[in-house]
């Protein structure tokens, strides 16, 4: 028994200290390296919400990454590119599970994802600990790029995103409400998700800062169908505008029940990119007409070419949501970084340092992407933020979106129309 124990201990020691030394013959990186043999492909991972209520986001981003890879003819540094997608759902548990599967695969150079901010909070500790990096095309919660733990920040090294920080989106909504709609009082509803709560708080703070009156801040829970209780409470506060940056279907329930709540018939409604899909307008029905919505907005010739490619390669109907261009940019940033840091050994093995890869992304400056000029910042509260917040707009839903499934809705305001920054 004792001898067996000794054998195990020795074996364990060998595995712990010996194996990396054997494998890392040419790796000088402090976080270790990805080594790719001469005939092996370069593996890019993705953690996206590809099932359930928010699957339209995941599919949207997946298409963006696929087009970015296709744009390079599936080749990087003379190797094939392999794209692996894990379902991260839209929850912390889903993100955690996907991250564990990603971290277990040592051939993955970098990850695009997650879709939801909640999932990122579950995934990031594992990805960061494993020395990997993730570039999210659609996480927008401010907490993810904030390293101040007391303020609820959850930033860890290895996190990047090409999506806008909600510090921009919430502020845009508030400025639109005050400067353009000229409303005086606001009520906010979130659903406990860090993304929705963050957005509601930023909106309320900015609105208050612009001399608006925040009369109600409340929350529902995911899965609620009956919103009459909170809407009655809101009606008692009599706001001019109700802001509910929650996901579908909760946002659909809120919108369709709000118009029938006595005292709120005249209230304006605003939601955010959590409901940015054609089905939101169709499922909500007539109540959706006139709802304002903040969301991603990308334009330009390069983007039109991208859309043409999407219709040709993926789906005639076009992208299902608004984060495909962010995913496209994220995948290109990652592939550029891999090209920059990869070293080819004499035996044909590619060696990619994990820390070097993170550094390469952190030093991205004025990258000309579909979503505008990207500069990855290093300082909290924007640590890992590559987007500037210019690729945003306020949309307004009309009859055409409800009846004919037209998407996206017409734009009524953009950041450049804001006065006083």
């Amino acid at each position, binding site marked *: 028994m004792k001898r067996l124990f000794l054998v195990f201990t020795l074996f364990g020691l060998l595995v712990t200290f010996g194996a990396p030394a054997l494998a890392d013959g040419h790796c000088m990186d402090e976080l270790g390296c990805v080594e790719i043999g001469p005939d092996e492909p370069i593996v890019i991972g993705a953690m996206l919400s590809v*099932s*359930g*209520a928010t*699957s*339209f986001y995941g599919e949207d981003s997946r298409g963006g990454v696929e087009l970015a890879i296709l744009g390079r003819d599936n080749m990087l540094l003379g190797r094939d590119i392999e794209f692996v997608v894990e379902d991260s759902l839209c929850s912390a548990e889903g993100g955690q599970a996907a991250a564990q599967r990603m971290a277990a695969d040592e051939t993955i150079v970098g990850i695009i994802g997650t879709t939801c901010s909640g999932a990122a909070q579950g995934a990031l500790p594992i990805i960061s600990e494993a020395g990997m990096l993730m570039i999210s095309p659609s996480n927008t919660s401010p907490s993810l790029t904030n390293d101040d733990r007391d303020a609820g920040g959850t930033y860890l090294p290895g996190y990047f995103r090409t999506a806008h920080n909600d510090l921009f989106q919430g502020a845009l909504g508030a400025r639109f409400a005050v400067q353009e709609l000229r409303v005086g009082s606001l009520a906010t509803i979130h*659903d*406990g998700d860090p993304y929705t709560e963050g957005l509601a708080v930023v909106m309320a703070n900015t609105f208050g800062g612009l001399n608006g009156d925040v009369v109600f801040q*409340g*929350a*529902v*829970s995911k*899965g*609620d*169908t*009956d919103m*009459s*209780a*909170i809407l*009655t*409470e809101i*009606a*008692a*506060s009599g706001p001019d505008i109700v802001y509910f940056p929650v996901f*579908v*279907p909760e946002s*659909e*329930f809120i919108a*369709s*029940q709000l118009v*029938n*709540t*006595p*005292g709120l018939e005249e209230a304006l409604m605003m939601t955010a990119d959590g409901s940015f899909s054609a*089905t939101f307008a*169709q*499922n*909500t*029905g*007539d109540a959706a007409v006139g709802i304002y919505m903040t969301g991603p907005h990308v334009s330009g010739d390069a983007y039109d070419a991208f859309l043409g490619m999407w219709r040709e390669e993926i789906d005639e109907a076009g992208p299902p949501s608004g984060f495909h261009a962010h995913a496209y940019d994220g995948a290109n940033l990652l592939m550029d970084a891999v090209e920059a840091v990869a070293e080819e050994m004499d035996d044909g093995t590619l060696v990619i340092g994990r820390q070097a890869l993170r550094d390469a992304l952190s030093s991205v400056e004025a990258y000309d992407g579909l979503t505008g000029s990207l500069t990855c910042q290093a300082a909290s509260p924007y640590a890992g933020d590559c987007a500037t917040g210019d690729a945003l707009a306020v949309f307004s839903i009309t009859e055409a979106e409800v009846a004919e499934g037209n998407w996206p809705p017409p734009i009524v305001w953009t950041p450049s129309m804001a006065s006083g920054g």
Partner: protein
Amino acid sequence: MFKWKTDEFSWVDFTIDVLRILIVLAIVVGSWNTLSEGRISFAQWVNLFIAGLSQGSIYALIALGYTLVYGILLMINFAHGEVFMAGAFSTVFLAEALNRTGFLNQSPVLAILLMILFAGLVSMTVAILLERIAYRPLRGSPRLVPLITAIGASFFLQYTFRGLYGSGFKAYPQVKILQGALQIGSINIPTVQIFVFASALVLMFGLYWLVERSRIGKAMRAVSENKEVARLMGIDIDWVILFTFGVGGFLAGSAGVINGMFRPQGVNFFMGFIPGIKAFTAAVLGGIGNIPGAMLGGLFLGVIEAIGPNLVLAGLGIPGANQLKDVIAFTMLVLVLIFRPQGILGERLSEKKA
């Protein structure tokens, strides 16, 4: 001295008494605070109450399925929420088609009846297959076995329907005739809520008639009383049990359509889970196995959920009161289990049934 007191003193009873007093105190203080603040007007309370009744009648229709099956087999059919989903999810496609052809708004009464019938039949089929395939082979085995099978069946049904119809969210089309509201003084009652409540009442009355007045109802009651003796009287037990599942399924399916008229959005493969659990709570609240109890329990739960957060929790200064709606529902379940395990209308269960 004081011997009689020390003898009877028990910490369990004491704790429960203290709990009782604390709960009553919390409810009284919370309600008092809210009402004295006067933020919410009388008309708004009435609106909340009526919305709660409508939501509650949907719970009640589903709860009846739990209670019918429990009454006869003494088992909790945890897949019943999925039976509800099956009808609601399948009928959304019929509703879309009816809406496209314009039939839905031309003759809404006929269209809704058609939808209810269709959903009822789909759910009935699912419930009957469930009994025949998953539960009947296990009849007579220890009680834990069918319970766990029910949970498995619930997952099976969820993911079968996800495979059939996809994982996206659907919504019922709006029926023009159900829009708008009935004005009584300063109170606006949405037409759709009157429809929900009325149609639920009709269905419940139908069930009551079936169980109490019809021949098969008599057989159901006999089987519920004592299976062996019922068999000796020449009742085909298997058929009666199948019939019971079918009736429960039909009610759940029609609840799916009624729910679709009331809260049109959020139709997907997972939509049966929460209503299923809420309806189970309602069935326990009313006294499981007791038919009027399930109706009452459902209505009670709906109203408590609608009024509770604003009345009690907001008054106690609890932040995010509306997020705690489910907490209220499940706290009710725990309280009933502690203080009145037999439910509001339930009789104390005999050894055999308990």
